């Protein structure tokens, strides 16, 4: 799978580096000073690099935890997000990562301790406020969990602070870290979902929708809180039928008591990002339909967005309480994705 690993000299002797290198005995190790030497250089080609990404082991020096904009999915008044990795194992055609980096290599920050310390600091800084932390916005939270062990490392931190919510966003079915420990009430494992026919066409290399739903069911039955995420909503012929089938499947499979929240949001790209993604995948049928530009944002027409949002909301409230249904506001998404 990974046959090249770039290693920052600074983390060469980090125990996590050694452990990860031990898993890839045959990989070629290339020493580097800083990950920026290799990652996101201008002359790189994301699409070609995605054919065979390398792993970069690095140290995160700053910006471990970032403030999320208002309306960022579910959440409290103060929302934060963090990413222990840049880039993702999967290759989803609507993903903003394609337009964000010129490089498809995976950057893994091995100094998890610094993330924990920053989270701790924030929690102590706001003792009387409910905070929400989101994991998995520059990567998938769990896709490389078997190699990184990040979720397993960070979960105990949140166990200590019951008023703080942590959401792991994923398409992965690698749920072992959650199976190994007792459920934590303030943790939500959020699964990105879309109708199977759309996922087959767009979610390259990601687990099938049925398996994701099954993973939610397993976690729910073990006592974990889960969160179906229908974001982005994809339009097309018979979209209502496709989504209706998906909702029926999700809400009849996953026990209602375990659903922490349901969220949905439109497909949106900042214009510059859309241009980059369109250049990379001009043959992609997702981009062939009506995606006009409004105020620097490329999205479906407002009528389509509103119709889809209404349809989703009306359906969700048949299955779950209105209080746990959240619409991701377009503004938050646009800011978040262009970060």
């Amino acid at each position, binding site marked *: 799978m990974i046959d090249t690993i770039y290693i920052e000299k600074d983390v060469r002797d980090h125990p996590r580096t050694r452990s990860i290198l031990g898993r890839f005995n045959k990989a070629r190790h290339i020493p580097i000073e800083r990950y920026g030497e290799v990652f996101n250089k201008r002359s*790189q080609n994301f699409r070609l690099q995605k054919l065979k990404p390398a792993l970069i082991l690095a140290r995160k020096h700053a910006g471990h935890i970032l403030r999320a904009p208002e309306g960022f999915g579910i959440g409290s008044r103060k929302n934060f997000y963090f990413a222990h990795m840049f880039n993702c194992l999967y290759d989803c055609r609507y993903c903003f990562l394609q337009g964000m980096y010129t490089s498809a290599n995976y950057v893994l920050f091995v100094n998890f301790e610094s993330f924990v310390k920053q989270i701790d600091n924030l929690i102590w800084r706001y003792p009387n406020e409910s905070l929400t932390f989101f994991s998995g916005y520059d990567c998938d939270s769990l896709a490389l969990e078997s190699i990184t062990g990040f979720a397993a490392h960070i979960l105990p931190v949140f166990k200590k602070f019951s008023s703080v919510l942590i959401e792991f966003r994923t398409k992965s079915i690698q749920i072992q870290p959650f199976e190994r420990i007792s459920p934590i009430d303030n943790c939500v494992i959020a699964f990105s979902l879309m109708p199977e026919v759309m996922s087959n066409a767009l979610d390259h290399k990601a687990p099938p929708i049925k398996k994701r739903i099954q993973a939610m069911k397993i976690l729910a039955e073990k006592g974990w809180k889960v969160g179906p995420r229908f974001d982005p909503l994809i339009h097309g*012929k018979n979209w209502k039928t496709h989504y209706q089938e998906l909702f029926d499947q999700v809400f009849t499979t996953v026990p209602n008591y375990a659903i922490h929240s349901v969220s949905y949001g439109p497909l949106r790209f900042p214009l510059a990002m859309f241009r980059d993604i369109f250049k*990379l995948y001009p043959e992609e049928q997702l981009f062939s339909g009506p995606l006009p530009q409004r105020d620097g944002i490329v999205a479906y027409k407002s009528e389509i967005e509103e119709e889809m949002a209404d349809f989703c909301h009306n359906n969700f409230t048949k299955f779950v309480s209105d209080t746990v249904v959240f619409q991701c506001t377009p503004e938050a998404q646009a800011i978040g994705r262009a970060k």
Partner: protein
Amino acid sequence: MGKGTAIRWVVALEPESIAIRKKYQMTRIAISGPYPIFKDVADCHWLTISGVGRVHAAAATMYLHQVSSAPPWAGWVNVGIAGHGAGTYGTLYLVDKIMDKSTGRSGYPGPVLSSNSVRGSLMTVDKPETNYGNDLLFDMEGSAIFEIACRLSCQQLVLVLKIVSDGPNIDVKKLTSKMISDLVSNSISEIFKLVGKLEILTKKEYDRLELPVAYYAIKKNWHFSQSQEYRLMHLVRRWQATAQNKELMHYVDECKDAKSIIQKLSIKLDNHEVDWGKS
């Protein structure tokens, strides 16, 4: 060779080029210029001989780009001999790190190709290096060719291949043209295997970057301003993605001018609903 195959070879020495030219039946093109240029009959493979050193290597790469009208999807290949402190004479290395001794900069040819070739790091120096060590390859051109080729194409389409020719026990001064030519010759099947994989990548890039025939046909029949051309390009690409490719010319056949073509295509595509298939 398929449509879209575009490989540009840069070697420093004439003997390094012999086996490559022979394989592709390249002939020298009849233009006078600072560096000799060779090409195959199909215009897919072009080669230049730069001479020794970074300045020549960079200049020859640029010159080959100009003379061969290299497209942005072209793959660039540098094959050459190199010194190595521990490597076995004749071993071919696929270079995945290049350090430039004089500037201190490093470059990382992206290993997108699946290959069993031995991989190594290369140090490009300005004077022949006889102080071998540190498990490095030494040459005098690699960093310059890589840097320029990356600007002309992209990092994933640049291959730097080095064959061990000298080291602590093999005096670089004793290398003859015949020895150099044989070194490349002996590795040629492995080189071609790698270049064959590179050709597949260039084809992928060609498919991505090249505009459909219909775009050129429309432009030929109607006058488009610069901004209209850009809009047309975007619309044709979207049209292609809807898989209605064959009908495009027919669809705009009766349009009076560029504006009406853009309008007609926009209306059609803005009402297009993607068919994702059946559940």
